[in-house]
């Protein structure tokens, strides 16, 4: 057993045992004093940078870690999250889910076709307001008249006599005007015969047959003519309370000549532009 002359260490060890509540034994005290001797070993001689520092030489001490690393990592993380969120928001699934609504340009055609259906001999409801109610939600896809227009390069409208026997309804079963807003200035069969015929569509760009645009704007998009006649009906302005009625009103269906119709034709709904193309209103999509 080695003796420990340092009385301070012995006092310290005894105080430690007393503090812990451990009964003091000579072996335990000696073991703890041996542990204290570990701190009395000579210090290692400094080397390298520490030796230079202790000798007075200017030594750059340990450089601080760059804190910009955290900033860069944080910015990269935030950017990645933003890109992810933006990518999810811009995913095409959202657009697919939003498309089931029918295209606005189809509705004028559907309204005209609806009007021709009862003319083929179907039972007509006694209520005059019923056709208007039925024509409104029709999203049925109708064949585009564009192929017909492509087949026939002549933009001249088909005479009424050609289409009359096919689509001209029976005057007895003529459906009542769906809206009471506008009195029909002309006989019904004549107007319908024109609206049903898809042949007059000459311009591939024009998507609606002449007269099919119930909205006055739907008939004069390409036309350069100015409407000279009286206002055709309540569907003339889209912002009116009955802006949608233009697509349901058989009379309004004849108005789309609107701006593109030649003089005097706007009242009949056979809207043709100055260049012979069916009119297409500026507000044709405004429904």
């Amino acid at each position: 057993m080695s003796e420990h002359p340092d009385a301070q260490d012995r006092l310290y060890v005894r105080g430690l045992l007393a503090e812990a509540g451990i009964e003091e034994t000579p072996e335990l005290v000696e073991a703890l004093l041996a542990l204290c001797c570990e701190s009395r070993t000579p210090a290692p001689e400094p080397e390298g940078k520490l030796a230079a520092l202790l000798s007075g030489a200017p030594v750059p001490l340990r450089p601080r870690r760059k804190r910009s690393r955290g900033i860069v990592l944080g910015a990269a993380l935030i950017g990645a999250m933003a890109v992810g969120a933006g990518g999810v928001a811009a995913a095409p699934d959202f657009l697919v889910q939003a498309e089931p609504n029918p295209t606005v340009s189809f509705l004028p055609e559907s309204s005209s076709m609806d009007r021709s259906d009862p003319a083929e001999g179907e039972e007509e409801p006694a209520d005059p307001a019923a056709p208007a109610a039925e024509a409104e939600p029709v999203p049925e896809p109708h064949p585009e008249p564009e192929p017909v227009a492509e087949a026939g390069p002549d933009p001249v409208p088909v005479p009424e006599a050609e289409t009359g026997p096919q689509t001209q309804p029976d005057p007895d079963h003529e459906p009542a005007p769906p809206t009471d807003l506008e009195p029909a200035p002309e006989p019904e069969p004549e107007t319908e015969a024109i609206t049903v015929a898809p042949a007059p569509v000459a311009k591939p760009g024009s998507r609606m047959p002449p007269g099919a645009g119930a909205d006055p704007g739907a008939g004069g998009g390409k036309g350069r003519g100015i409407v000279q006649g009286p206002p055709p009906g309540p569907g003339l302005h889209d912002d009116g309370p009955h802006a949608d009625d233009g697509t349901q009103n058989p009379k309004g269906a004849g108005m789309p000549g609107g701006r593109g119709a030649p003089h005097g034709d706007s009242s009949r709904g056979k809207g043709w532009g100055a260049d012979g193309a069916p009119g297409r209103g500026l507000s044709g999509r405004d429904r």
Partner: protein
Amino acid sequence: MAPPLTEQTLSDARARKPAALRNIYDDFAPAVLGYLRSKGCEDPEALTQEVFLTLFSKLDTLKGGLRGARTFAFSVAHARMVDDARRREREPAIAVFDPELDRRATESAEESVLGGGAGVAALLGGLTPQQQEVLLLRVVADLSVDESAKIMGRSAGAVKQLQRRALGELRNQLERKEAPHNERAS
């Protein structure tokens, strides 16, 4: 014999005076080296110098005077010891065989009779790492309970409990070790 450290020594060390730095090194280094060696670090001398390089670079921001500097020095030593232990766990140790460092030897008859020769490692071998840590910080580093708790990241009560259990276990080990000797002597 190095002069005892004073607050003036610490102030001079903050001014990068070599004499003050040397005094601090001579005063702290033996305990730091003993702590690192007792924890089984691979190169305790090199780690000790790293500890002091860190300590001297942070003298300007230290608080608590000399006790604070001592506590900080052992905090750095504790961190270096943990890093060294983790590195040794990751990497296989490649060491040249040194018979003096081989602790697998059994006691000789003389050592058994004399009852000596048990090193610190053998002394602390039956303790848990936490109990070893407490005893080393309290005995070798000469730190208080609060300072030891701060370094270990535990409460003072937990450190006291660990210290009590460590000392009790150490006493039991010594008693068990002494019992065969007494039987053999009788």
